[in-house]
């Protein structure tokens, strides 16, 4: 979580960062979810991909290079944040169309079922995607075919400027999953241990062949929807949201339980800072793709 926060902050500070969707405040969802996934599984996401990609274990150097458009990035600079993909690392990929990756994820899960690979698919999407027909159609197909999919809704309660309550009729987004007969839960997405625990339980059951499940994680984003989007919340609201920081919460918990102390905390801070510094240096030292690459990998 610390790495995601530091990485994204460093990225956002750059003049050349482009158009980014950050996970500040929502790190517990990505990290908790990824802790439930193994090497046989695949994670797919929407456009808010940086946090999940790092949580999944993608090399920060390669992710930073990709985000900054360098050809040494995970996808030769052609994906950027919206389409980051490293299937060998279990990150089948991001897709920038809201809801557009959900049926794709079900297809990946179908392939796993057909090949009896033992893997599962986790598809991460936001409350913004939850009104989309693509979600509902995909839930239906996953349910009738008993596919190994964990549908994870990261409900940060805003779709750019539209609050969830104005966009969605069900009071719990997990009710949508329940409507298709699958086990569905809504939990506090700011508690990384809770997310890890519940996601882990659900993943195990799916691996055992019990069919798809739906997990809604309530979270709060600290910044606006994207680095170029206007903030719609008041300063007071934002201050109150910051007090819910999942990193601080976890840090307090670990300190209290004696699992870390101030010394290891500081060490972690430095480690994270080093990783981010190295990632930036790697990206800055890398070349942009040759213009001729505009026509490669089309067919």
């Amino acid at each position, binding site marked *: 979580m610390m790495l995601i926060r530091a990485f994204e902050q460093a990225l956002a500070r750059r003049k050349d960062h482009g158009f980014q969707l950050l996970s500040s405040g929502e790190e517990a969802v990505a990290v908790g979810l990824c802790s439930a996934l193994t090497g046989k599984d*695949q994670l797919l996401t929407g456009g808010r991909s940086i946090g999940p990609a790092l949580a999944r274990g993608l090399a920060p150097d390669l992710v930073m290079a990709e985000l900054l458009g360098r050809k040494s*990035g*995970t*996808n*030769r*600079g*052609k*994906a950027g944040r919206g*389409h980051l*993909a*490293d*299937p060998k690392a279990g990150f*089948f*990929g991001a*897709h920038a*169309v809201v809801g*557009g*990756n*959900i*049926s*794709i*994820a*079900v*297809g*990946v*899960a*179908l*392939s*796993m079922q*057909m*090949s009896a690979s033992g893997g599962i698919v986790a598809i991460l999407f936001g409350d913004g995607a939850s009104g989309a*027909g*693509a979600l509902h*159609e*995909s839930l*239906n*197909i996953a349910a*009738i075919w008993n596919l190994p999919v964990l549908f994870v809704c990261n409900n940060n309660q805003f779709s750019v400027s539209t609050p969830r309550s104005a966009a969605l009729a069900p009071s719990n987004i997990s009710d949508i999953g329940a409507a298709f007969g699958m086990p569905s839960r809504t939990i506090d997405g700011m508690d990384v241990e809770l997310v890890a625990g519940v996601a882990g339980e659900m993943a195990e059951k799916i691996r055992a062949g019990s069919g798809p499940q739906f997990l809604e994680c309530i979270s709060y984003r600290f910044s606006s929807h994207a680095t170029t989007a206007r903030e719609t919340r008041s300063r007071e609201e934002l201050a109150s949201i910051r007090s819910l920081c999942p990193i601080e919460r976890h840090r307090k918990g670990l300190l209290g339980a004696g699992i870390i102390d101030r010394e290891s905390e500081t060490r972690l801070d430095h480690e994270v800072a080093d990783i981010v510094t190295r990632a930036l240096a790697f990206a800055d030292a890398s070349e942009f793709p040759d213009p001729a690459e505009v026509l*490669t*990998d*089309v*067919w």
Partner: protein
Amino acid sequence: MSGKPAVTTEKIFFREAISRAMREEMRQNERIFIMGQDVGAFGGSYREFDGLFVEFGAARVRDMPVAEAAMVGVGVGAAAAGYRPLVSVTYMDFMMLGFDPLINYGAKLRYKTGGRLTAPVVVKTTAGAKGQGVAHSQCIEAWLMGVPGLKIVAPSTPADAYGLLKAALHEDGPVVFIDHKRLFPVAGQVPLSEGMVPIGQAHVCRTGTDVTITAHSFMTRVAMEAAKLLEADGISAEVVDLRTLAPLDMRTIADSVGRTGALLTLEEGQVTCGVGLEVIGRVHELLGPIPSARTGALPAPVSSNKVLEAACLPDAQRVLEAVQMLLGKRSRRSGRKIASFVPDGQ
């Protein structure tokens, strides 16, 4: 020509060409499977998948709920993950529902992942008008021709349906395979041995000297009919069956037009931004401003009404008149407007 072995062929129905291609490919590659409405025990709306459910079972011939967006997406996703699905979209009109996963994900997957992933999915669909009404009659292949990364094929005979479907199932990326309602009653000779038709290759199905008519799908048959009428009128027409719409075989097309010196394009879809316009544009880039004209549907939805449907779509007579006009031989005595040539409002 000596040394070339005789290809044995068998006369079969159009639908049998499709099921034969599927059966052969599914036997050879267990990663190929079918998804669609009524494809299983029902055997497909046109019986084009007859026998496959019995041979390969429900895991490889999967009936779907009516949900084209997710169906295409699931197919594209399974393809990206290593399988080779054939997604059957019953009528081409419904493809619109699946445009997002096909175009925004499938066609762009190789590019957007820098080559890490690709989606070898075949979307098979039936185009064309045959009394089914405004939302069940469309030919919208032209809308797809400009999508980088998406190949499009449209056979006009059982042999080409067989050959192009087999070829499509061997491609590394997404392919749209378009057949036609009015092709299913057609029977024809199909090779008994492997008869893959290369993608990206047009076919001169009738040689001629005065004009080149390009066409695809059912309209190739209309073009051939028109060529007979033209012959009686003293005009020698060469008919080029496009077979692949993306990528277009400009070598064959340009070679033909270079010889005949005139080009009439024929399609069942709309001429606005149509297949024909693309062919003419490219021919002009290659050969200069050769006299050209387009024939297609009138700019109206295609009603199920028999009279209106017939009035809307091109037929051999309309093609004849368009060629005569193009070649300056049209008799002006009748004064009848050639609606397909200069439609109102365009």
